[in-house]
Structures are given as structure tokens and as C-alpha cells.
């Protein structure tokens, strides 16, 4: 390689080494002599050996793709002539010795004298062919996935419709049957069970559907939610169940009552926690439920604690929030509730976990996403 006559051998070595870091091409364009010194043997070899030595900028320019050439030359000229401009970028294609074109990204710095006249341009040329190809592929994948997602969503509505029609019919037919008119006790009982089975089928399909809709609708409507208001609504909606259970429920949101959350999710989370608590109470003792918030490490935590049956976490620890996981042989359990809670909390940028001891009780905790400082 021919050395530019104003650089020390040590400097040349440094520049050649820097070029090796990313296999870039470093170039220094002396505008006085109109000579370009290039460093980065590996980079420049792909475009022909002559380029690694001192040569006029035209040697490089003639390799630029005809579609890009005049634009690139014009842009550099304009940048050099404008005393305001110190930095500039260009992306263009350059012909390699193997006959293919490489996508090149130039980052350039224009050095100027005290009058603002450009004297030298320093540049780094990177081969971004691979990156660009990846970008295109990624774009394609994203667009494919988006399409697939939306057709899945459509599919889920169709399936749900196709399933719901016959289920609705079963329920409708059941509603017409007046069991009191059936004389045979076995048939009467059978019809009663048949109706129950139908209702359960309906519940399961609706639960699945809820899950599908939620997973395919990432758009979140986050707003300021008052925890005490939502909790009261949920309590009211299951009032009879609470009264039946004789549960003693205390709620204390004094450490923090307002969160940035999707109100529909919050409602569903409280409802799932509450119905779980009522369902899995310990028949041996009165049910006590404590709901409270806590400030910790700048985050707001919500705890939902009961003295119910508890869960053996050694056995089920990692499955608590899984789909279709049931830990108690309860007839009404679908194994969906906690999975929905976990999905909703995660989708909102929060965390959810559980601590529990069999026969002592269970505490579910949610850490809400830190509310960003006002901008």
C-alpha cells in the first residue's frame, strides 16, 4: 500500500487497525491535492486492489451504481461547499470485483479552516448489504406475521360463531323444557344434568373466546384507574356470593390508589382474584380477605391475601399462571382465570406472583409498571 506522504508509519498502522475492527473502509480525502488515502485492505480488496492506495475520488465514484452516482457526487459537493455542514451520510451501491453490488453506508466528517472552507473529508464506509438484506427480510416477516395474526383473529371469530350457534341452540332448547312436567325421575334428573352440561360448555367456549380476543387485541386502553372504585364495583357484582361465604373482606388502598392501567383488565383481575378466593376457601375456618397496596422501590404493589386452602407451591409453583392448570378438584374450575390475570398484567408491563402455604392461605401480588416522570 502506498502511504500518503504526510502521515507517519505509526499513524498508518493505527488507521489500518481501526479499519479492521468492523472491516470498514476508512478514507481521508485531501481536497487540496484531490487525493484519497484509504485504509482497510479487507474492505477495499472487494472493490479492487487499486483502491487501497492513494487515488483520486473518481476511482471510487466510477464504481458507484449509475442509479446512485450523480446523487452521491452532487450531495458531497453540496455538503463540502456549505460551511455550515460538518457531518454527512450517504447510502449507495458500489460494484464489487465479483460483479455484484454492495450496499455502502458512508459516514463523513468535513474538516474546515477558520474561513469555513473545507480542507479534508474524513469518512468511514461500511458494507451494510447483509444488514439491509436482514432488514428487508425482517420487514417481510413482520408483514407476514401481521397478516397471519389478523387471519387468525378472523378465524377465531368464525370458529366461535360456528361453535356458539349450536351451543346457543342447546341452551335455547333446554330453556323450553319444563322439567316439572316430566314424570320419570330419571329423565327429569338427566334433563337437569344435560342443561348444566350445556351451560358449562358455553362457559368454557366463552372463556376461550375471551382469551383469544384479548391475545389478538394488543391495543391497550390505559388510563388512570382508581383501585377502590374498581374493587367496589367487583364486590357489588358478586355480592351474593360474598354474603353466602360469610367472608370478611378488608380493603386498604391508602399507600396508593391510582394506577395507569386498562380499567377492563383491572376489573377482570379483581374479579378473578375474588372469585378464586371465594371458591377455594377453607371450610374449616371463616374466610378472611385482605386487599391492600404497598409502595416499594418506587413501584406500587397490590396484594390480595386470603386464609383459604392455599396452593402447594413446591408442587405447582411454576404452573400457577399456566393455561388450564387446576389445583383443586372444584367442579366450577376452568383453569383459565389466573392465566388471564397473568396475561393482562404482563401486557400492561407489570409483574404478578404468588406466595402460598397449604392450609394457611394465599397471597397474590401485582407490581404495577412504574409511572414515568411527567415530561
Amino acid at each position, binding site marked *: 500500500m502506498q502511504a500518503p506522504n504526510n502521515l507517519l508509519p505509526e499513524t498508518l498502522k493505527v488507521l489500518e487497525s481501526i479499519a479492521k475492527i468492523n472491516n470498514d473502509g476508512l478514507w481521508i480525502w485531501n481536497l487540496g491535492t484531490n487525493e484519497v488515502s484509504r485504509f482497510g485492505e479487507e474492505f477495499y480488496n472487494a472493490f479492487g486492489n487499486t483502491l487501497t492506495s492513494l487515488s483520486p475520488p473518481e476511482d471510487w465514484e466510477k464504481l458507484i451504481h449509475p442509479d446512485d452516482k450523480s446523487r452521491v457526487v452532487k450531495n458531497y459537493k453540496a455538503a463540502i461547499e456549505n460551511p455550515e455542514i460538518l457531518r454527512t451520510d450517504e447510502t449507495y451501491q458500489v460494484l464489487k470485483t465479483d460483479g455484484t453490488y454492495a450496499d455502502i453506508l458512508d459516514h463523513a466528517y468535513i474538516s474546515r479552516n477558520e474561513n469555513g472552507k473545507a480542507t479534508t473529508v474524513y469518512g468511514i464506509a461500511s458494507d451494510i448489504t447483509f444488514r439491509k438484506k436482514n432488514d428487508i427480510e425482517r420487514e417481510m416477516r413482520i408483514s407476514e406475521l401481521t397478516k397471519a395474526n389478523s387471519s387468525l383473529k378472523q378465524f377465531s*371469530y368464525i370458529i*366461535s*360463531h360456528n361453535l*356458539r*350457534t349450536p*351451543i*346457543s*341452540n342447546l*341452551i*335455547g*332448547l333446554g*330453556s*323450553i323444557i319444563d322439567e316439572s312436567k316430566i314424570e320419570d325421575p330419571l329423565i327429569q334428573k338427566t334433563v337437569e344434568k344435560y342443561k348444566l352440561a350445556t351451560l358449562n360448555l358455553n362457559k368454557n367456549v*366463552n372463556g376461550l*373466546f375471551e382469551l383469544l*380476543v384479548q391475545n389478538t387485541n394488543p391495543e391497550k386502553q390505559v388510563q388512570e384507574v382508581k383501585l377502590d372504585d374498581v374493587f367496589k364495583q367487583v364486590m357489588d357484582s358478586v355480592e351474593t356470593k360474598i354474603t353466602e361465604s360469610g367472608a370478611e373482606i378488608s380493603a386498604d388502598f391508602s399507600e396508593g390508589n391510582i394506577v395507569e392501567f386498562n380499567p377492563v383488565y383491572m376489573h377482570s383481575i379483581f374479579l378473578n382474584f375474588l372469585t378464586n378466593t371465594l371458591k377455594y376457601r377453607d371450610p374449616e375456618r371463616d374466610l378472611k380477605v385482605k386487599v391492600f397496596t404497598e409502595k416499594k422501590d418506587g413501584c406500587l404493589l397490590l396484594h390480595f391475601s386470603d386464609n383459604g386452602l392455599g396452593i402447594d407451591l413446591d408442587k405447582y409453583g411454576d404452573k400457577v399462571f399456566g393455561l388450564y392448570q387446576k389445583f383443586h378438584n372444584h367442579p366450577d374450575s376452568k383453569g383459565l382465570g389466573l392465566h388471564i390475570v397473568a396475561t393482562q398484567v404482563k401486557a400492561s408491563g407489570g409483574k404478578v406472583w404468588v406466595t402460598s402455604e397449604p392450609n394457611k392461605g394465599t397471597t397474590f401480588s401485582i407490581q404495577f409498571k412504574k409511572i414515568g416522570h411527567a415530561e
Partner: protein
Amino acid sequence: MLNNLLLIDDDDVTHFICENVIKNENLTKNLTMLYNGQEGVNYFRNLLTAESKDVPELILLDLNMPVMNGWDFLEVFSKEFEDKFPNTKVCILTSSLDPLDFTHSQVYHNVIGFLNKPFIKERVEELKSNDRLAAYF
């Protein structure tokens, strides 16, 4: 009580259920049941020329149907019949849970309700307490 109610739904079992529930709950004097939107359009075309006019006060309309679906029926009804039968209201009866279906149905001002199947007693009560049907109950 309504005088005339028209059900448009392609499903036989739905016909059977509606027929029985409507009878038990005294929703209407006369019930006509058709299988798709095209039959509905023909029905109203005949009404235009018929001598005795038993015009339905309410149409229970399914959305997914062969030949002509509920949406296309609503379009034709709005264009051809709405001004001739101003007292005829429509209530969607579907098993679709697609929220877009509900939103879309609100575009038609003669659609007074959106019911999810099955058509059971509680749905009839919803209809009876609908403001825009108050005159009949």
C-alpha cells in the same frame, strides 16, 4: 304485545326455539319465519301490493345467512322499504361475539337492539323493556 313479528334466520332449531319462547312469553300475536335476507325482501315486496297489511312491527334478524345475509338485507330494507314501513324496527339476533358486528349495526337507525343467541326468556324481557317498543307492552 306485538301484532306481527318477522324472524329471519337460516337455522331450523332457532326457528323452533323462537317459536316456543315467543309463544310462552306472549311476545306477539302472529309470527312469520323466513330463512334468509332474500326471502325477507320478497316478503316486503309482496306487502307493498298486498291488500291486507299485516306489517311486522319488529324483525328479528340473523346476520350470517346464505343467499342474502343480514347486512345485505338491512341495506335493501333501508333503501326500498324503510319509508314505506316506518313503524318496522329491526333487532339483530346473532351468535356472533365480534364487537365490530355490534358497532356496524349501530349505523342503521331502525336497528333498535342487538341480542346474542340463544333467544331465551331473558331476551324477550329485554325486548319488552326496549324504549322503542314501549308502545306495545
